[in-house]
């Protein structure tokens, strides 16, 4: 087991993200129903957010525009071939994730920041104690086969998989 708090080497750029007032943490790009590309986030109201939600439009944007699910910036600003998925062990086993890929540094930050809040986070409906971290060169976007179903991501060039217990 790895303590993710020691893995945060680079602080991600979260200056454009709104803050959740209840927990005092940035709202992940993929979970934020507010504003979007081309809108000044600083002028948007802050307030409580559903940190466990994945907004479908945002998830699709992450997949197609190749932007990070946490910071919302281009994956080009991170190392190529290092899209990092964070989810449950079951998701890793099924090779299907609900939360969009992140920069490695953003994934480190997310694991160090959100699970200790004790609320559902990062696309999970329940509070999770252990998390799977999968690094991949690429992924496929799985559009929902049924109305109302979530968008999913399928890594297709996995280079590492590990299980971590944050906090």
């Amino acid at each position, binding site marked *: 087991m790895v303590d993710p708090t020691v893995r945060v080497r680079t602080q991600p750029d979260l200056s454009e993200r709104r803050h959740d007032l209840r927990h005092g943490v940035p709202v992940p790009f993929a979970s934020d129903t507010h504003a*979007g590309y081309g809108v000044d986030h600083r002028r948007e109201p802050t307030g409580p957010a559903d940190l466990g939600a994945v907004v479908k439009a945002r998830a699709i944007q992450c997949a197609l525009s*190749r*932007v990070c699910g946490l910071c919302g910036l281009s994956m080009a600003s991170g190392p190529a071939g290092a899209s990092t998925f964070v989810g449950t062990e079951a998701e890793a086993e099924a090779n299907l994730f609900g939360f969009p890929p992140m920069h490695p540094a953003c994934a480190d930050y997310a694991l160090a920041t959100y699970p200790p809040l004790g609320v559902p986070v990062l696309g999970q409906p329940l509070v999770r104690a252990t998390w799977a971290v999968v690094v991949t060169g690429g992924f496929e976007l799985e559009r929902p086969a049924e*109305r109302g179903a979530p968008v999913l991501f399928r890594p297709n060039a996995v280079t590492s998989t590990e299980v971590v217990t944050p906090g």
Partner: protein
Amino acid sequence: MAISDVKEYTHLTPEQVEELGRELDALRERIEQSRGADDAAYINKMITIQRRLAAAGRITLFASKWKPAFFAGAAMLGVAKILENMEIGHNVMHGQWDWMNDPEIHSSNWEWDTAQPAEQWKHSHNYVHHQFTNVLGHDNDIGYGILRMAREQKWHPANVGQPVYNALLALLFQWGVALHDLDLEAIRKRRKDPKEMKRQLKQIGRKVRRQISKDYVVYPLLSGPAALSTMKANAIANLMRNLWSYTIIFCGHFPDGAMHFTEEELEDETRAEWYLRQMLGSANFEGGPLLHIMSGNLGYQIEHHLYPDLPSNRYAEISVTVKQLCEKFGVPYTVGPLHKQYGQALRTIIKLSLPNGMTSDDGPEPPPERIPDRRLTDAERPIRRTETGAWSTRRSA
């Protein structure tokens, strides 16, 4: 049911739409399972050919004061730029080769030989165009904000000049594309976030400086006494690329048969409905393998829109099954020779420069929905289904 209006054209029941979706899923899985060394060899070969052509062109232009070298160098460089933009850059940035885990041939890292920064292309093209294909008010590729390409778009007296705008767009295509993600209309109406605009403009400025210094300063200076002729040849190479990429791109969604959609509800369409919208909104053109390679395999526009992240060298193979599925389900598969497809797009441009009342419309009546008279920002795109929606469809012109 979101596909209800499309049914008017396809006569498909919801169950048939889902069955079509399952068949297209199976086709995707088959290609993913067989993706491997041959595909990797293909893209590596393309990149090698492109780089050798570019190098040969640049070296030949050192002697560009001699007319045959001038034309040969410009032609080689033009073809290299076309290959880089169409078959390599466009497809790499879609993530078609990310599965190789090659840090260079990767959607995160590839920066192409044109004025638009890759990051902005991945937003305006990969996301906005591919997600909202041919949806009026969403898809910025419908006329690029310059041309009126659907009868549902409100006519303005300025549209009379659109044959001229079209010619200018073709000649200056890379510069038009460079500004594509900025949304000039939003800037003009002061709706654009100034911080975001500044960030994008800085990014474009850096890229433009790099492109201009490469083609009009560094290589001409390296040519010594042939500097001026090298500069001219480089301009010709860029012009070749502009005209070619413009032509290919306009053949993808504007020939007769490619439908436009009005949006009531986008968010909750199923994968099968999304497949169907991509098929109905795109048009292919026919040609030999060389034409398809030079077109970035966008002659298989339907297949590209169904599977934008599958390797482009497999589209020909995929098209066989897609065509069979279209026949089986009675879905239109729009295809024709390149000159015919472009001719139809050009006719639409000319026809729609005039008000609807002055031109004939062979298609059915326009849908009643209100068409947004400006581009929507990502924040304004629907994020949740609130009511049962419907697609409305229209053919071009």
